[in-house]
């Protein structure tokens, strides 16, 4: 559940137009809120300030991001994103409340006998601050309505281990790795460029390219760079709901190899980058 939520994390539309663009620097008007099956709860506490969190994930991994409008003029919007997380309970609880025993060790022996704790590699208490900025520019049609919006987003995040130790890089699936990297004590930087366009009333197309950097363990020779591409549609399904469908492509180094035949017919091992395509789906309510 945690991994799938991580894979489909998306910001939410504002109250004024349920089919407003997504993943932009726009911040909702006071009192507006929205929530998806997989998208987080976003709630505008004051004009120009939203808080964002996944309600279910929050039970195991308390986290919150504040999105603050810094500029909205002449079609340009700039928002700052300030986040904080404490994922420890997600690492120490078994499903459905956490991923202990799945993505990280459950440490049953250490829990039974403290003398065996030296063998437990489960991540400890990790504080995860994050800092980001989103810059959007709208594009109007002949009638003066804003039909398209381009957004550049940049954010950095780092997990700081305050008790216990950091986890080992998951080397799982790319979107999971990128999303959870700070939660196991790694650092992460993301640069994403997206474009969202209203095709007709009730239908939007969206695309995004991303470049992600995650710090690696000292003895890991994996490339820290991951690239992503997203394409999808948003369809109005009712006054307050939309359906989003799309696909994401991820290119990453997850220690993939292929065994090939060399020029003399002998086997040789070659490193290859991983290619992943993941479907995305959500239903988002907006009020």
């Amino acid at each position, binding site marked *: 559940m945690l991994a799938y939520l991580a894979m489909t994390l998306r910001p939410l539309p504002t109250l004024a137009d349920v089919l407003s663009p997504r993943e932009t620097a726009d911040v909702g008007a006071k009192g507006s809120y929205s929530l998806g099956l997989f998208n987080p709860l976003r709630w505008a506490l004051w004009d120009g300030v939203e808080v964002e969190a996944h309600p279910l994930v929050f039970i195991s991994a308390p986290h919150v991001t504040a999105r603050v409008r810094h500029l909205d003029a002449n079609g340009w919007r700039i928002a700052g994103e300030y986040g904080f997380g404490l994922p420890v309970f997600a690492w120490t609880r078994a499903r459905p409340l956490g991923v202990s025993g*799945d993505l990280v*060790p*459950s440490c049953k022996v250490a829990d039974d006998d403290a003398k065996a704790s030296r063998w437990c590699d489960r991540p400890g208490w990790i504080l995860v601050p994050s800092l980001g900025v989103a810059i959007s520019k709208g594009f109007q049609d002949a009638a003066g309505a804003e039909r398209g919006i381009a957004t550049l987003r940049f954010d950095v995040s780092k997990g700081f281990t305050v008790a216990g130790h950091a986890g080992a890089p*998951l080397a*799982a699936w790319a979107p999971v790795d990128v999303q959870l990297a700070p939660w196991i004590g790694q650092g992460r930087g993301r640069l994403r460029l997206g474009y969202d366009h209203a095709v007709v009333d009730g239908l939007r197309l969206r695309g995004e390219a991303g470049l992600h950097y995650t710090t690696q363990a000292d003895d890991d020779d994996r490339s820290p760079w991951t690239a992503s591409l997203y394409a999808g549609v948003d369809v109005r399904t009712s006054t307050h709901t939309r359906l989003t469908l799309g696909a994401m492509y991820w290119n990453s180094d997850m220690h993939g*190899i292929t*065994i090939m035949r060399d020029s003399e017919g*002998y086997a040789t091992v070659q490193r290859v980058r991983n290619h992943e395509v993941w479907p995305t789906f959500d239903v988002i309510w907006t009020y």
Partner: protein
Amino acid sequence: MKIAAFLLSVIALLGACEPLANDENFAREAVLTFRRSTIKPAPDPGQTPQLRVVAWNIKYGAGRIPFWFDCWGDRTQMSKAEVTANMTANYQLLNEIRPDILMTEEIELNSRRSAYYDMIRGILEHTDLNYAAYFETWNSRYIASEGVGRIHLGNAIFSRYPITFAERIRQVDRTDQDALTKKFYIHRAIGRAVIEVRAGTQVAALVVHTEAYDNDGTKRKHIQQIYDVARQENLPFVLGGDFNELPPTAVQVQHFADERERAVCGADYQQPPYHPADMQKFYDEFQNFVDLPRYGTDATAQARYHTHSVLGPDDTNDKGEHGSWNRTLDYLFIRKQDAWLPGSTDVIQQRGQKVGGDSGLGPILSADVLRLSDHAPVTGIWQVQP
């Protein structure tokens, strides 16, 4: 679980370009051979070839680090430094014994838990062995259990002499697992390599590693199939590996010192009952490197030929006893018409041991064998009757 397996399959079909897990759909399949970067000259084994053979479960280079499924520790991953140190110690032992043919089990090519260390290349480049055939049994993109992650594991046959053909022979999977676990679990196979030891003289080596934790008779099926395959082998052959089964005259068959007295972990990796009688046919049809009379009929005699212990000498069980070899699970079989060179066969158990016994051919070991793996190597010089 069925729903989860279906969803995973749909996701895989939709296009994660690397399969989630290799189902190993084959009955019998040729495999490529690896070669050392620089070939080291191999001695002429003679008209009646004499070959030092070794079978060794190297526990993926983990030494005595207690991994979670043994339930004496919680480790799921090693650092590169740990794996490198462990494998270096393994190379030291191999260079003391100097096998002509080495059969390994639990060798890894690119697994997260062993820091993605290429053990095939490592053994080739750090010993006198020139060729290797790798028989993949477990290739999963990600095992979402205890953070195991990517696994690329199998058995391998190394040789100083050219491997002219290699194949793997599929064995049945367990039937006592849910669909999701089964998809991501190990898929056992017999590895077979044809080796040209001198011009015009070929031998075969068979490496095996049967199932260890089943409760549905899978291991017994594996053992029967191994027996059938060996009987059908036309070339002179050596059959070696980890059978996960006791000799037919083993005195102790249960309640081993390294089993938990309390339920600390789950039941998935608890030791099921042994069926030692299943091994009798191998002793009847072939020659083990240690025959049953030599193995003995009392616990003290048999302890000399024990090849496995879950606990190492630096750890203690629930009673506070340090770990040591406590059962025999590893074997080397040859045909009746061949012979083991007297004084050459042994279980390599500890530092200071003279291989073959006090009157054996040696060498005297300086490697700390008890800490290199949860299995001891087994060895002998095989005299091949063409």
